């Protein structure tokens, strides 16, 4: 029964595909998967927007949207209708073709990333051997569409926002990749299915998630930081800092194209949360062995939503960084830490089984963190700031 529930979507797909003649079957299977992804993730997008607005409200001692529907749950629907019926304005001197293509490219590229995410047992759209590489290739392509949006608008705020976004995404892609490489070193595979399989084992009922190993935890923290910057979320949201750049690279977009950017941003957030959950939090595997009765896809989506809630929490708490702080943080703190983490992962591999490697690896990482933090706090770059004219 549990197995049945676990595989319900897979069985359903097989049943539907079985209805058509043989040559059409692969095409129909692909279409079904695409439709499922296109239906589920925009739905999750709506839910996370609502959660964000309500949650941020509560963190600021407000109520949040509560007018549309009971407790305001239909707010995303109202927002969607509003975005769709708004006039689509294109600035007179904008580069029309590029201006049109930018959001389309963004949304397409962002959705492509889902192709390799294992969303449950046997629930990967394309079980690819180089899945992780594919995911990062798609993530890297999103940058060009952001540049296209900013440049084609012929607006200096848009261009500034786009250049900030691109510089930030390039800078944080390096730690993002390097912190994932730790996991690749530990599993010996670029395939995301394989990575989840390795984590889906239990000792004394506890899972073998990579976040519970010293360098896995360090990589997890680094990955979370880099992922936040990669998706232009607060506190790294200065590409779209409302108070400085109006809205950054999508200032000149309205109506449906704006909605596309909004969707692209949130869907990218969901997808990078999915990747983070897959790499560090065991993907679709249950947090305790006895909880395996709950379907695997439930755990995947639950982990995504927890990650999203953490994003919202951070957005409600942290102030925005300055551009130079952002760059200094990426190149002078996160990148050296990820490089050290790679070394530690190698050490872990060569020290063999036993408790000694736990102690040594944790000690190295902790010492580096404390030392790096001390030195950083003492330098003017990240330490507590003093204002010359305030006070």
């Amino acid at each position, binding site marked *: 029964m549990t197995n049945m529930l676990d595989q319900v979507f897979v069985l359903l797909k097989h049943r539907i595909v079985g209805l058509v003649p043989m040559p059409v079957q692969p095409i129909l299977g692909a279409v079904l998967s695409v439709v499922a992804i296109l239906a589920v993730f925009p739905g999750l997008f709506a839910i996370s927007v609502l959660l964000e607005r309500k*949650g941020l409200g*509560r*963190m*600021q*001692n*407000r*109520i949040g949207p509560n007018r549309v529907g009971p407790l305001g749950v239909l707010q995303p629907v109202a927002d969607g209708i509003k975005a769709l019926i708004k006039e689509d304005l294109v600035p007179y001197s904008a580069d029309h073709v590029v201006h049109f293509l930018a959001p389309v490219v963004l949304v397409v590229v962002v959705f492509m990333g889902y192709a390799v995410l294992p969303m449950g047992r046997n629930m990967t759209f394309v079980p690819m051997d180089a899945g992780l590489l594919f995911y990062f290739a798609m993530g890297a392509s999103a940058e060009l569409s952001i540049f296209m949006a900013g440049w084609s608008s012929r607006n200096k705020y848009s261009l500034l926002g786009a250049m900030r976004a691109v510089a930030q995404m390039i800078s944080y892609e390096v730690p993002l990749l390097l912190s994932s490489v730790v996991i690749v070193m530990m599993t010996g595979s670029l395939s995301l299915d394989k990575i989840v399989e390795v984590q889906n084992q239990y000792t004394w009922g506890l899972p073998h998630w990579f976040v519970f190993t010293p360098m896995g935890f360090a990589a997890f923290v680094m990955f979370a930081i880099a992922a936040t910057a990669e998706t232009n979320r607060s506190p790294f949201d200065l590409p779209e800092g409302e108070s400085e750049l109006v809205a950054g690279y999508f200032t000149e977009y309205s109506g449906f194209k704006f909605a596309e950017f909004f969707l692209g941003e949130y869907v990218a957030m969901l997808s990078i949360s999915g990747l983070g959950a897959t790499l560090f939090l065991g993907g679709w595997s249950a947090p305790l062995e006895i909880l395996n009765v709950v379907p695997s896809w439930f755990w995947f989506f639950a982990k995504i939503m927890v990650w999203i809630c953490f994003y919202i*929490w*951070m957005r*409600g*708490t*942290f102030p925005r960084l300055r551009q130079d702080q952002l760059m200094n943080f990426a190149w002078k703190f996160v990148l050296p830490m990820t490089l050290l983490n790679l070394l530690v992962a190698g050490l872990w591999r060569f020290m063999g089984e036993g408790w000694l490697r736990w102690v040594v690896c944790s000690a190295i990482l902790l010492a580096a*963190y*404390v030392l*790096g*933090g*001390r030195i*950083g*706090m003492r330098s003017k770059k*990240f330490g507590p700031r003093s204002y010359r004219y305030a006070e």
Partner: protein
Amino acid sequence: MLGEGLLKGLGETARNFAGSFVSKERLTTVQYPEEREPLPEASRAFPFLVYDGADWEAGLRCVACQICEKECPPKCIYIEKSKDKKPDYVGKPQIYPAKFDIDISVCMSCQICVEVCPFEAIKMDNQFELATDDRFGGLLYDRKELARSNEYYHKIHPTEAAEVDARLAEEKAKAEEKAKAVAAAAAAKAAPAMAAKPAEGAQPQ
């Protein structure tokens, strides 16, 4: 320690988040159209015209002196004087406004008209929900729409209205006294000269 402040901040927002479900006093939001807070007494939005008594047309305090029209910075007041006269609160015959229009869409709520009015005839209302779908006529108020009774004035600004009433009563008393004195003087002057007509001029009302 690096990151300590971040954790502290996260704790603070978490406390806010959880607290907003538990304690009512954290959520200070007032759900406006359904529930509203009482307006403070000094709140003011747009001017209105005060009248005494029951009949708004007869009781208007305004005497169409046009000071407010001249002083209004955005020039949103338009007054037309009447041809005939009617008695004011003191009893003196005065002209009254045949037309008194205020364009609320132009008014900037500066209250200068109230300050310059020598007759306490124009005061500030606290009604602010004046939105209308008529762009041109809907916000151009004539004297009928502007007229509010003195009781209404007492209701929205009790302290201020009481002061105004006291001042008016004092003025009225003074005017009566003066009139009486004038009458007495006239009577005293007239008495020796014309004893046959003692009452003339002694009753101005």
